[in-house]
């Protein structure tokens, strides 16, 4: 909560005198219906949870490097009963909650909630979302979820411990594990709330983008960020309800005694599991029907932001704007027919597996198009190595690694060996941390001036980038090697298998890198808060960018724009020969005699 107050405070200072709106502190900063405030509320909540998720991850790493060793400092505080060491059931909780927090409370809400909220109206030239109250609700529906998840650590049995995938029957049967008691129920409730929040957000975004674009802002003049947000919202609107239905079914299995995911006559831990009649695999199908599209929900907006940042600091139009748009749509469309690739080893019908393998291979195509177009964008450019640019470039670099490892897993025979090994864990973190989180950092450095009216420190930003980049690769790249050795994931102590005993030194190396990476984030925290209050003040358009948000005052007041934006061209007209400057804002009228300014597209 405290971070809210701080954030709002800065916002207030920045706003002072911008608008004579006397709605009171609560109305303006807490129960605000202003998309910018809501966006910043999302940003602070998610960054806070990022720290929580990160610390959980560090505890995971501790156990993997030095199993059963007393945790320094926190160990005696948290589990003195176990001699300060992590117990195996606590380990399962750690990675379950680590992933649940990171995915449902950090990555998804920071992309759609924070950036989506802040950027969509600004970048399309609207004064707010189409439904500001709904927008506010979508933030406040996160709070019951936050509450459920936090609470779940303190209930008997502890927090959910069935993996972030919550597979039944482990998750659905109370007696199956300590975490499958109250903790799992709270986990389900929390996810349902997150789902409702996302659903409210997504229909609102769609309406806003469809109906409230500024004059001249045709669909093919939208910045990639907006296209990505648009398609992300479509994915959420169509995939999320299926997860919601599945979550409710598991909840009913657990609380009422239905049997959707429980076969007949099942006995777990000497206790009857309930009525039965259902099928365990049903959950996996429904879960992945959402959660595979969800991994694209977790990367598309970052791809959009990265495209904008790269084009801006390459001072050159985005290469292949339309192919980029089509590839986003392609990823979204194909994303709905590949969910089975998480289930190759699940006992799914192997013919079905073959079909999913082919579609999974095909989904690499649109991603390939994107990578090549980013490379095309920096070809022949004039690259400015700013902090946001470095993060955006590292997004490309890391996404290539994460994406290519996906090809191994998509190849079903290879997946036989690497499924549920650290190869998968490596893949996850390359796409999610190396990809999305780096994209998010880039986005924060890029839009920070617009949010708070001040610049972040460039030098410390670069130090943060360098350390994160180096230690990130140190932590996660070697996971592929572990995976190749068959090192299984989700194991509290893998070293009592003869096959994996020799892999401990590598794990220690990874843990040290992970600790260092965590520590490097402190630089970011310091830079963030320092700059919020003491960073150099900036004008409307510090990066000399083209898109509409830079046309608005900094920071934008209530209603966003002080002049009606009218759009004359696409968002990426950097280095245009039509004008003398190396940028050419979308709102700048064409000079005399230049009536035909190009839309982005092929020439």
């Amino acid at each position, binding site marked *: 909560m405290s971070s809210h107050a701080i954030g709002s405070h800065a916002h207030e200072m920045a706003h002072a005198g911008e608008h004579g709106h006397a709605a009171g502190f609560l109305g303006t900063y807490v129960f605000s219906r202003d998309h910018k405030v809501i966006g910043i509320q999302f940003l602070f909540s998610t960054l806070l949870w990022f720290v929580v998720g990160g610390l959980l991850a560090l505890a995971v790493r501790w156990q993997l490097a030095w199993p059963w060793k007393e945790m320094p400092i926190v160990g005696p505080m948290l589990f003195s009963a176990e001699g300060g060491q992590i117990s195996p*059931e606590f*380990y399962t909780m750690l990675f379950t909650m680590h992933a649940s927090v990171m995915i449902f409370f950090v990555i998804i809400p920071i992309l759609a909630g924070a950036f989506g909220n802040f950027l969509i109206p600004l970048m399309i030239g609207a004064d707010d979302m189409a439904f500001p109250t709904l927008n506010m609700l979508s933030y406040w529906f996160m709070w019951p979820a936050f509450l459920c998840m936090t609470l779940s650590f303190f209930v008997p049995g502890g927090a959910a*411990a069935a993996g972030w995938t919550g*597979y039944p*029957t*482990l998750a659905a*049967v109370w007696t*199956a594990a*300590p975490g499958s008691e109250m903790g799992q129920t709270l986990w389900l409730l929390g996810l349902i709330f997150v789902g409702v929040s996302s659903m409210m957000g997504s229909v609102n975004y769609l309406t806003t983008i469809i109906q409230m674009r500024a004059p001249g802002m045709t669909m093919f003049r939208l910045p990639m960020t907006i296209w990505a947000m648009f398609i992300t919202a479509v994915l959420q609107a169509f995939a999320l309800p299926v997860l919601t239905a599945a979550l409710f079914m598991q909840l009913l299995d657990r609380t009422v005694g239905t049997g959707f995911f429980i*076969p007949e006559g099942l*006995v777990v831990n000497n206790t009857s599991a309930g009525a039965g009649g259902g099928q*365990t695999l049903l959950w996996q199908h429904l879960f992945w029907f959402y959660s595979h599209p969800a991994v694209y929900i977790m990367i598309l907006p970052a791809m959009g932001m990265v495209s904008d940042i790269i084009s801006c600091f*390459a001072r050159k*139009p985005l*290469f*292949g704007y339309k*192919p980029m748009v089509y590839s986003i749509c392609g990823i979204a469309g194909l994303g709905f027919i590949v969910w089975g690739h998480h289930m190759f*080893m699940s006992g799914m019908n192997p013919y079905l597996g*073959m079909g999913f393998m082919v579609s999974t*291979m*095909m989904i690499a195509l649109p991603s*390939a198009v994107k*990578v090549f*177009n980013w*490379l*095309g964008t*920096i070809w022949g*450019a*004039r*690259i400015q*190595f700013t902090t946001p640019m*470095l993060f955006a*470039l590292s997004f490309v670099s890391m996404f*290539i*690694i994460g994406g*290519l*490892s996906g090809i191994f897993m998509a190849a*079903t*025979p*290879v997946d*036989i*060996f690497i499924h*549920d090994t650290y190869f998968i864990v490596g893949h996850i973190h390359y796409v999610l941390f190396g990809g999305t989180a780096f994209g998010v950092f880039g986005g924060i450095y890029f839009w920070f001036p617009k949010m708070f009216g001040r610049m972040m420190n460039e030098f410390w930003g670069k130090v943060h980038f*360098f350390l994160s980049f180096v230690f990130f690769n140190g932590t996660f*790249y070697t996971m*592929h*090697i572990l995976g*190749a*050795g068959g090192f299984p994931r*989700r194991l*509290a102590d893998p070293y*009592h*298998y003869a*096959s994996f005993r020799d*892999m401990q030194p590598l794990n220690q190396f990874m843990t040290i890198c992970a600790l260092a990476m965590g520590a490097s984030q402190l630089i970011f925290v310091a830079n963030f808060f320092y700059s919020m209050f003491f960073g150099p003040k900036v004008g409307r358009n510090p990066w000399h960018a083209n898109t509409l948000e830079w046309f608005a005052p900094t920071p934008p007041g209530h209603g966003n724009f002080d002049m009606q934006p009218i759009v004359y061209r696409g968002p*990426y007209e950097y*280095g245009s020969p039509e004008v003398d400057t190396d940028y050419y804002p979308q709102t700048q009228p064409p000079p005399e005699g230049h009536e035909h300014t190009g839309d982005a*597209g*092929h*020439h």
Partner: protein
Amino acid sequence: MGRFWSLLFLSVPIFGVGVFVWAPSHGYGLPKDVSAHGHQIDHLWNFILILTGLVFVATEVVLFWFLWRYDAARHADPVKYTHGSHNLEVIWTILPAATLLFIAIYQMNAWADVKIRNPGAEGMPITVEVTGRQFEWRLRYPGKDGKLGTPDDIYHVNDLHIPVNEEILVALKSADVLHDFFLPELRIKQDAVPGMQIPVWFKATETGWYDLVCAELCGWGHYKMKGRLTVESRKDYDKWLDDMYAAQEATK
């Protein structure tokens, strides 16, 4: 600073390839393969490793080169003002498409060998029934009559014996939650699902002891759900079965 950052990005492919070159010589990498079908998987692994390795190095080096070459601080050349190239888009859509399609078709046979061509369907009897249970592997051999569910069934826990160079058919089940029957050296992995009986078949080509790993989260004791696979000659195997049977009768 542009040079520094470019080189940082160049270090990615160098480090990336370096690690994969360094690893095998230090005992990291695919474990020894002792199965009849495993070479197909290993071959595919290597094939994809080389292919993606090439793509990886190519893209990362291009990234480095553009960063190095087009650093604004060092070059005053005007930017190449272009919105893209239709021809290039076509090329870099079709090339990967062809490659990926090739991989997709190329691997189908290996998949079918491990998961589709079930010898049980042709009447092969079950060698052993394996049931995952929190947190142990329960084994049941059909005994002399070759049928499960008869009085001469042999029961055992965690210590799986099989004869070498013979096709083995496992009936995989779970008693409570999901488990996963993972034999790294035999390139076999299959979830055990409550309520389902899933056939798993393989042929071991070398005698020895290997780990039987539970690779699907099954609760707090998941990490210690360890079994052992003993591959032995037919003679030893038969003797072991007889001993087991005798011991079992003695305790009755």
